[in-house]
């Protein structure tokens, strides 16, 4: 009942390799079928995201032997040369595989520490594999444990709570002033990549109305066409600044575009309703003196970068807490796994002793012709009773005592000791 993991991620493989080894849902199902039919894995689950492709499995035989088979399968399935793939692949077994998955679900192995999307991706991957019947008792238990870890890390630590990009930090700060964005409007100055990132963040947070202003009207219309929004003519400050609650500037200009006088006039026109300004331009697009205006909140690129940096430190400081949760659940899973294996071992031992008893009696009874059928049956029954007596107490204790299961670290050694021909339960 070993667990094997073969995969690659953003740390081990460049994007060119990752995109070739990714799986669609259909491909995941096909891979599970093939791995089962070839006898490589009895249970399979494929986790494929833009940053990782991993196959978790329970092989019918020892996992240490099936890992090379899995690597070859991946190479063949995606038509990627084995030597190209081998430098990017990692293999984990049992405890290491369990720990790896739990860390993935917790967001500890993500490119952006603590990101939330991965938990949803793990959930989806498990759902598809479970519905298809590709998983079994071991992977079901393993992935349910992973989802629990992910949930606990997100509720009990602050690993994923703080914004980690300049754009998201800016939008979250605006929410500190206005609350939810779904009744708010924003004006975006500039139509470049940075503006688009902020617009996407604002859209994600449900911004109600979006206005786009750019020196080149075509650029503004193009961005408005892509993300939705209304184009406002360049320099029409009186109308453009009257309505929005959030203003984002990312314009290439030597001099500040929004000068103090412009904003002062705008604040008077809007009845001093609070105005949040995100200045992402370098050189700055908003005159520094504007930050003193009443009910005006200005954050420039440095301010936001500093906040992101503070948040990065805060997230890092949450890692030990998250690792503790991961370790706790790894222990729980291994204890469950050991209990299943140990009970299986006792059952296998019982069958083995019965066989031994049968051949032993056959050999001894041949020389005891004076015993009748009834006496022979009585002797067999007494020996059965003795064997049961010897086995039943340890079996009951293994089922009932968690601490005892924890103490028995190496089930393989016990199996080797008592089942010399390595008979598997």
């Amino acid at each position, binding site marked *: 009942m070993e667990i094997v993991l073969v995969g690659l991620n953003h740390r081990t493989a460049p994007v060119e390799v990752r995109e070739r080894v990714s799986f669609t849902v259909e491909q995941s199902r096909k891979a599970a079928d093939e791995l089962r039919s070839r006898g490589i894995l009895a249970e399979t689950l494929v986790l494929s995201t833009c940053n990782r492709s991993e196959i978790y499995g329970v092989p019918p035989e020892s996992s240490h032997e099936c890992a090379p088979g899995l690597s070859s399968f991946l190479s063949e399935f995606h038509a990627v040369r084995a030597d190209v793939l081998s430098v990017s692949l990692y293999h984990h077994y049992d405890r290491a595989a369990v720990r790896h998955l739990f860390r993935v679900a917790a967001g500890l192995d993500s490119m952006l520490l603590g990101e939330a999307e991965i938990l949803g991706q793990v959930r989806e991957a498990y759902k598809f594999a479970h519905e298809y019947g590709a998983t079994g008792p071991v992977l079901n238990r393993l992935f349910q444990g992973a989802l629990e870890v992910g949930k606990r890390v997100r509720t009990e630590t602050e690993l994923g709570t703080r914004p980690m990009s300049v754009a998201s930090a800016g939008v979250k700060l605006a929410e*500190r002033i206005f609350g939810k964005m779904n009744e708010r409007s924003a004006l975006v100055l500039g139509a470049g990549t940075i503006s688009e990132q902020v617009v996407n963040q604002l859209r994600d947070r449900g911004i109600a109305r979006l206005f786009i202003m750019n020196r080149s009207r075509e650029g503004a219309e193009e961005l408005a066409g892509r993300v939705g929004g209304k184009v406002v003519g360049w320099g029409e400050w009186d109308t453009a600044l009257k309505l929005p609650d959030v203003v984002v500037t990312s314009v290439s200009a030597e001099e500040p575009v929004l000068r103090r006088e412009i904003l002062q006039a705008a604040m008077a026109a809007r009845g001093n309703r609070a105005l949040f300004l995100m200045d992402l331009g370098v050189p700055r697009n908003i005159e520094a003196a504007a930050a003193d205006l009443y009910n005006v909140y200005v*954050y420039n690129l440095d301010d936001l970068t500093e906040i992101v940096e503070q948040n990065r430190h805060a997230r890092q400081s949450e890692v030990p807490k998250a690792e503790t949760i991961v370790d706790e659940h790894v222990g729980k899973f291994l204890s469950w796994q050991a209990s299943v294996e140990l009970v299986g071992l006792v059952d296998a031992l019982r069958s083995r002793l019965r066989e031994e008893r049968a051949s032993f009696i056959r050999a001894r009874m041949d020389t005891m012709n004076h015993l009748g059928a009834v006496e022979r049956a009585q002797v067999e029954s007494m020996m059965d009773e003795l064997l049961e007596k010897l086995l039943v107490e340890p079996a009951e204790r293994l089922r009932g005592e968690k601490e005892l299961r924890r103490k028995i670290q190496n089930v393989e050694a016990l199996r080797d000791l008592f089942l010399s021909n390595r008979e598997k339960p």
Partner: protein
Amino acid sequence: MKDLFLILTIVAYAGSLTLYLRFLNTGKEITGRLGTVFLGLGLVAHYFALLERSRGMHTVPYHDVFGAMSLFGWLLALTYLGLELFHRQRSVGAFVLPFILVFFVAAHLAPADRLSPPPAKGIVFAFHVTLSILAYAAFALSFVFSLIFLAEERLLRSRRLGNVVWRLPPLELLERMSRSSVFVGLLSIAVGTVLGFVWVDRLHGQIWYYDPKYVVTLLVLVLYALYFHLARSATWRGARASKLCIFNFFVVVMSFTVVNLYLSQSHRYF
């Protein structure tokens, strides 16, 4: 079992405070909800504790300064719970609960002021006092909201964002909560004052006799009405209105202390 409700109230309020603090720190929704549940339980236990105290002294809760304080704490909790549910915002609970707890503990652990039982003053008088104390409780809440507003605004302007700032209510919501609270206070003090005049009329056969408390109450009413109006005006909205609200509450505290204790003839504890 004599102090059962006293103990239950302290446990419930302390539990609520702990849960609200935890909610502020971790942002876990379930702890915030449990904080609200404990506050509700505290309100029920506090009600019975007030009842028990009044029965023991054969008088109304506001007969002495400690009873008035306890009633103030209860109305503060009630008003806060109402505002929390109305605005769906729990993160200020951690700042309000200490006041409620302090008022309750101070009121109930203090020795009872065993003066002669007051004459029965009727339902009009009871409403006059209760509504006045409710108004003070609502003004105290707006004071707390305004303080949080100013602190959060300062943090946002200084760019020194700690852990807590991400958990506090948005500035505009704090403004709305403060205004709602002042609205409750204004309504209560207006009706309470009218009822006071009605009661005086019944007692003395005349609607007016001079008491410095009238002047201060009128001043409080005018100041809060001014705040309620200015808080939405172009010049005052935001930090300036919050500062006015804080100033107003100092007038309320003066009315509660100096005016009641040294100047007023008929308003001792409310």
